[in-house]
């Protein structure tokens, strides 16, 4: 409970900090609208040539796009800023300030930053999802909603675990900025249901970089395709990845000698 209060406190401070820069809201809104427009154009282009893509209808792919935007917003609001700061701290040697605080270091480095304006994408994703649900006409009930929330939470935790493991690599390889580009490129693939990709790529997108669980599975919940097995599998993989991330983090810390004076 203590850690939740700590996270909440950091969140509040972060939000208050960012709220000083109101103009950034409009910058973000403009960018999000451009991205949304582009996404809709692509969807229109694809469905100008076909009626379904790998078994998904237009409305269902709209749901996938909604989840993709929503999850992207969550990552850029909560996960990415913290991991970027962690990388920066390792480079500058300022990580010691976090390590000497009397709280669990992993919790601390995971909740320090929040970029609240990025959550424009969370709202945008929810709007797209609402539009998709309306177009799907009545296949959406309380069970789908619960399944969606569960799948979304599990997917978010998996992405966080992956990010933490990769970022921990900064303890050995100090310069890691290009990892960001790599992740963004791969996350781009989640715009479409992973079922359309060739086997080797689908496997990678499921287990290596869990874009499948972060985007496709929540979208399956919304479109009524989610099975109990998938959800249980997602829970199991989340547990495995969280444990692995914890171990990698601990191992990294043991190897970290500090850099500050």
């Amino acid at each position, binding site marked *: 409970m203590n850690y939740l209060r700590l996270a909440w406190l950091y969140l509040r401070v972060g939000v208050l900090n960012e709220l000083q820069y109101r103009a950034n809201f409009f910058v973000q809104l403009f960018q999000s609208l451009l991205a949304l427009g582009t996404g809709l154009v*692509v969807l229109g282009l694809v469905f100008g040539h076909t009626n379904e893509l790998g078994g998904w209808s237009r409305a269902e792919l709209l749901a996938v796009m909604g989840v993709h935007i929503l999850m992207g917003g969550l990552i850029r609001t909560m996960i990415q800023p913290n991991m970027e700061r962690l990388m920066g701290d390792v480079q500058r040697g300022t990580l010691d300030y976090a390590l000497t605080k009397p709280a669990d270091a992993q919790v601390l480095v995971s909740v320090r930053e929040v970029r609240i304006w990025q959550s424009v994408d969370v709202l945008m994703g929810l709007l797209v999802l609402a539009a998709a649900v309306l177009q799907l006409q009545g296949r959406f009930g309380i069970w789908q909603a619960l399944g969606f929330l569960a799948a979304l939470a599990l997917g978010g935790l998996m992405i966080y675990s992956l990010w933490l493991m990769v970022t921990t690599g900064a303890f050995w390889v100090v310069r890691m900025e290009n990892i960001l580009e790599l992740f963004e490129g791969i996350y781009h693939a989640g715009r479409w249901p992973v079922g359309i990709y060739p086997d080797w790529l689908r496997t990678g997108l499921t287990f290596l970089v869990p874009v499948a669980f972060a985007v496709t599975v929540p979208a399956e919940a919304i479109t009524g395709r989610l099975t109990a097995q998938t959800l249980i599998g997602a829970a199991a993989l989340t547990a495995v990845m969280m444990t692995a991330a914890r171990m990698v983090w601990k191992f990294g810390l043991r190897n970290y000698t500090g850099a500050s004076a």
Partner: protein
Amino acid sequence: MSASLDFYLTQMKTAIVVQFQYRVANYFYMIGMIAEPVVYLVVWTTVARAQGGTVGGYTAEAFAAYYIVWTLVRNMNIVLTPYAWENRIRQGDLAAELIRPLHPFHFDLAYFAGWKFVAIVMWLPIAVALALIFKPALDPTAGEAAAFVVALWGGFFVRFGLLWALGLVTFFTTRVSAVFELYFTAELLLSGRLAPISLMPQWVQGLVNFLPFKWAFGFPIEVLIGQLTPAQIVTGLLAQAAWSLFGVGLVWLLWRPSLRRFAAVGG
């Protein structure tokens, strides 16, 4: 003349040596970039299969060829980002560059042109891997291949000039990102990067002929994969020349008024 040629060669050599040092960083960047065409390729291949084999005149193998050549053209299309001007002005780098006897345009052009050789060498293994996986149908004639080499550099010049001119907007306003994002979105949709132009609605296909984007990106690809007649290739190369001149002209026109807005920073 020979002095400026010498300058270009030296600056290009410097760029090659510098960029080869950052091999790993360059590769991360390139691999991240590969995801984009692979996604488009899979989506359009899926559509083509569902439509009985072809869509917009492309088979699965033709799409593979399109998007593999895409990766080379994309690398050649990377030029000085207009966002770089913000840093140049704020950190005072520009003040130092202005003291030199040559226009900064030449420094950047030579540097990026040199970097391209590193990009091409590093691109080759990626292209081989992609070709083994996706089995493209690529069978250009000697003439098409030769035209492609010219068109590839032509696309680089077009985009380099236009984005350099666009970057000068930074001298006039501090809210540059909105302008740049609009430009990049239009480019994404209208250049052939998102999808081959022949998949676009008819009116878009007409429109893109009068904009620079396709000539920098889609046109070189179409040359190599054999979509164009010799007459179309010549027209395209002329369009590239025209847009390159247009970009240089814009820089020439805007440079003085831009500098007048510049108060030097740094020492």
